[in-house]
């Protein structure tokens, strides 16, 4: 499996560290909604198909990447910087139950 790092180009899987499911959004730190926190920590969609996930290029430039990879075929279709994964920021408040 190769992942194309935006800085370094296509690199072998062994250079990367998996950091898990990228579909999860941490509730607002001020939120006291127990249900939302439990769901964030324990519940997973466990997608079969295109999966958004976070990898770190720990054996290279150390950038955190949002990778779209098919969990049925291992084919990587998109790689972006995790910080640019746009919906994260704007969704944060909505996902945590509207706390502003």
């Amino acid at each position, binding site marked *: 499996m190769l992942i194309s790092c935006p800085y370094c180009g296509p690199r072998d899987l062994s250079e990367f560290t998996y950091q898990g499911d990228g579909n999860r959004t941490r509730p607002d730190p001020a939120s006291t909604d127990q249900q939302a926190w*439990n769901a964030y*920590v*324990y519940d*997973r969609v*466990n997608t*079969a198909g295109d999966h958004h996930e976070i990898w770190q290029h720990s054996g290279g430039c150390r950038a955190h990447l949002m990778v779209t990879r098919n969990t*049925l*075929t291992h084919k990587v279709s998109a790689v972006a910087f995790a910080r640019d994964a746009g919906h994260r920021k704007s969704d944060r408040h909505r996902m945590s139950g509207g706390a502003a």
Partner: protein
Amino acid sequence: MAEYSALSLLKNAFSGNRDWKPAWRKPDPKPSYDVIIVGGGGHGLSTAYYLAKEHGITNVAVLEKGWLGSGNIGRNTTMIRSNYLLPPNTNFYEHSVKLWENLSHDLNYNVMFSQRGVLNLAHTPGQLDDMARRGNAMRLAGVDSELMNPAQIGRLIPALDLSVGGRFPVVGGMMQRRAGTARHDAVAWGYARGADRRGVDILENCEVTGFLRDGDRVTGVTTTRGEIRARKVAVAVAGSTGRVMQLAGIDKLPIESHVLQAFVSEGIKPFMDTVVTFGAGHLYVTQSDKGGMVFGGDIDGYNTYAQRGNLPVVEEVMSEMVALFPGLARVRLLRSWGGLMDMSMDGSPIITTGPLPGMYLNCGWCYGGFKATPASGWCFAHTIAKDQPHAFNAAFTLDRFHRGILIDEKGQGSTPRLH
């Protein structure tokens, strides 16, 4: 039940072995059953067997999307043990070992359960202290366990490099002598035959495509072989749990699917008569009766539904193998394969009623499902028949994550790839 005996072998030898009855029938699906079990792996088949044997519920169908033995029951490294620290795990897996001890007689099918012992190696004094604690907890629960020193280990496994290349010297180990291995295919076939002879329909090539609902209640399934109704629908599909439960509208579970690779070498002369695990990395190895070294290591560590892994893990496992057994460096690898692991958020399984009315769920086996096969089926059958868990699986609930009653043997937290 006694179909296989010295006499029947002799009798069938005279008729050229043409008159053996197939081990299970190939029936067509009936329109309805008392219980449907989705998943014809080890756990599904043993559930059907114990439903019939222990609870007299024989109007049962086991639905398998492929053929029997095509999933994890034929993809594991066949190791069996009950060396756990936490009481729910200790009691459950010890019940399993006790069922294993009588399984060949119970099924009249030789599952080749071999109590050759499982030895966990310790490479630091701290790790050995931890093993002493775990071993003591096991002994308090009535499970056998003993600490070994390097000299004893060296006598037991002469081929082991006790210095492990000088980097991770063996300082001791914990041995469970009643642990061991079994022949995994025979387990599937034995349970299948036992269930079939008691009236259970085993439906192969019958993939579930959806669930029939009456309001919230699950009343049956749609399959590639038509609609089948049932009062109770039980799901035991391991790595496919996410996909199957999504068909029932359950979008999120405390489960991630990962791939675990396993390996077997070419056959060599008798080399080692126990199971040994490397404690400074992650490796477990045994020698099969055919002579092949059977071994595995960590899961690949990323979400996947593909039954194959990648090369970095292969390289890591091989390097661990050669570190422990330098003498095997030139032995050739015969085959490798992958199986899907339903990694739970605390590393412990789920055997429960629900999450919908009329539904029962068995999953979260991480990569310890094979040894659990008898007890998993035994407890799941009890849960289905009585609509409540047995004491052995009462702690393996689905809601324990949200309620904060985790059974986290390694103290690893909700990072499934690390369990």
